[in-house]
């Protein structure tokens, strides 16, 4: 299966595609011909699943928002893309901003929303500027703003920049941050569909999910699900980084074999003399797979899930034998220790202890008992916190211990890295 570039049709260019080339929001025009229930039905029928990581059906999410409330409703587009190994949303926003804005307008029409915020991570200043410009030109053409296309529908879209915090990609951390606070995730329930931004009903969708809404409304749900698998229809953007010849963002039908993405599309392993040692399929929160297991899998939510990992954000990191996997794990634990928001004890303390223990073993100061301790600490971090940041490192640690135990043991035995590999993380 080759690439199927539906979302990314215009991403192969230097400059962003602005309105003069994009056209006048034909998908939104078609959307206005339907009532809101029919639009949500189209999204459900297309089977678009949330592309931020959880894979929750988007149409269903939209339908959870109550129709008749006397409070305002909000849409938050999650453009906080902070999962290590993920960079697809940035490419889409920088090259084709209007496909996102049109998708936002479609969602807002379907759910009855008058204000949308694009929460974009602070590290994407260029994408934020491009979106600002795209919003301004769409307003000028009456494609956004008051009485859009004279259909009596008003929508304001604002870009809201974060300022460097992984946790704000968690949907309730994002809400807190948008409200001008530290990004501390909220206890659920209540879910944002009922009580979200400013205490009002709120839809939170990833950039790629909303852009997919544009495709669904432009070409119909049948075309959307003509590729992909039955349970994971459509295309998905994968960000591939690490030790492959051609890293980058690729859009492929869900269900494409891992092997095809790595070998045919990304050109295979970076070095001919160093085989792949490990594949992280969906961002660094996705438990790592051995190449033997990974190469037999297809890229859909079900297959990757059944193998004990997750498709997540589609951020695939390929690692060859030139680096020490304990060093890799240390880098990951440090990231989560750094990014823990500090609210919940198991996460605040646990992430730092994982970092300390992995560092100790990596540097030859560990014992075999430490491996049990590491597993126990990680186990106690699962399901004991407000959000899943804690699980997002605890699970990979446990799977590293299970799938790559020999590497831990050899470090303990040799009292250091047995291959004397250079450290990639200080």
């Amino acid at each position: 299966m080759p690439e199927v570039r539906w979302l990314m049709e215009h991403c192969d260019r230097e400059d962003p595609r602005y309105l003069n080339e994009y056209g006048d929001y034909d998908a939104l025009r078609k959307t206005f011909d339907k009532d809101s229930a029919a639009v949500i039905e189209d999204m459900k029928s297309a089977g678009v699943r949330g592309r931020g990581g959880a894979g929750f059906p988007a149409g269903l999410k939209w339908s959870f928002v109550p129709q008749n409330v006397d409070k305002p409703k909000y849409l938050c587009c999650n453009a906080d893309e902070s999962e290590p190994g993920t960079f697809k949303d940035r490419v889409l926003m920088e090259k084709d901003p209007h496909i996102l804005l049109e998708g936002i307008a479609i969602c807002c029409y379907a759910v009855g929303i008058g204000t949308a915020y694009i929460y974009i991570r602070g590290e994407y200043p260029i994408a934020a500027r491009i979106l600002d410009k795209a919003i301004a030109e769409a307003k000028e053409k009456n494609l956004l703003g008051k009485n859009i296309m004279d259909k009596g529908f008003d929508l304001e879209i604002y870009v809201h920049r974060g300022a460097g915090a992984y946790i704000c990609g968690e949907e309730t951390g994002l809400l807190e941050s948008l409200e001008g606070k530290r990004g501390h995730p909220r206890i659920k329930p209540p879910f944002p569909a009922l009580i979200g931004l400013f205490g009002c009903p709120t839809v939170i969708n990833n950039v790629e999910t909303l852009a997919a809404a544009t495709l669904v409304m432009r070409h119909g749900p049948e075309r959307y699900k003509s590729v992909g698998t039955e349970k994971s229809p459509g295309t998905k953007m994968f960000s591939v980084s690490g030790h492959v010849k051609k890293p980058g963002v690729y859009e492929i039908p869900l269900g494409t074999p891992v092997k095809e993405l790595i070998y045919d599309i990304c050109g295979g392993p970076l070095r001919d003399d160093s085989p792949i040692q490990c594949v992280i399929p969906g961002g660094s929160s996705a438990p790592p797979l051995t190449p033997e297991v990974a190469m037999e899998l297809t890229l859909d939510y079900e297959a990757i899930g059944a193998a004990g990992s997750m498709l997540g954000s589609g951020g695939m990191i390929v690692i060859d034998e030139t680096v020490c996997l304990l060093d890799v794990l240390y880098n990951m634990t440090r990231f989560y220790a750094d990014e823990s928001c500090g609210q919940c004890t198991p996460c605040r303390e646990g992430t730092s202890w994982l970092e300390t223990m992995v560092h100790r073993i990596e540097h030859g100061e560990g014992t075999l008992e430490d491996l049990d301790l590491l597993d126990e600490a990680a186990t106690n971090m699962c399901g004991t916190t407000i959000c899943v940041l804690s699980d997002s490192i605890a699970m990979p640690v446990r799977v590293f211990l299970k799938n790559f135990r020999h590497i831990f043991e050899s470090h303990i035995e040799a009292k250091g890295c047995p291959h004397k590999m250079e450290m990639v993380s200080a």
Partner: protein
Amino acid sequence: MSYSDVTAPKFSPEAKKEFDELCSRYPNKMAPLLMVLHLAEKEFGYLSIEVQEYVANLLELSPAHVQGVCTFYTMYKLEKKGKIRIQYCATLSCAIMGGEKVFDHICSKIGVSRKGGMSEDELVSVEKVECLGACDIGPMMLANDETHGNLTPEKFDALYEKWKSKNA
């Protein structure tokens, strides 16, 4: 107010206009805070305690809340940084592509310790940060708003020379 009116920071008329526009986007006065801090940083260079108090006052928030937010997010400048501020990615995809070596080179080139810091002439500052979302071009960094990827010591040296001659 704990600062004297003489040293008190104050938005220029243009920044005040931008501030008002930002406030109009939200239904209350707390929500614009992150955006207003970005604006204040652009206006005043960095977010000193005085600037934080000024913002708190404008938005009718407690200075403690504003400081809490300033320190939670890693991008806000709480102290003076170089004219070129390098945020260097230390996360996995960049690290496995040899990011650490280039980082060492940058630190020694600008004359700071491996913890990062600012060059003596205040031209360049460097700090390690987590994933910047450009993993396919690792090792990479942000220099102010510009992304530089596939970094090598040579590539950095060329950039450094360019910055130096531009700011001579």
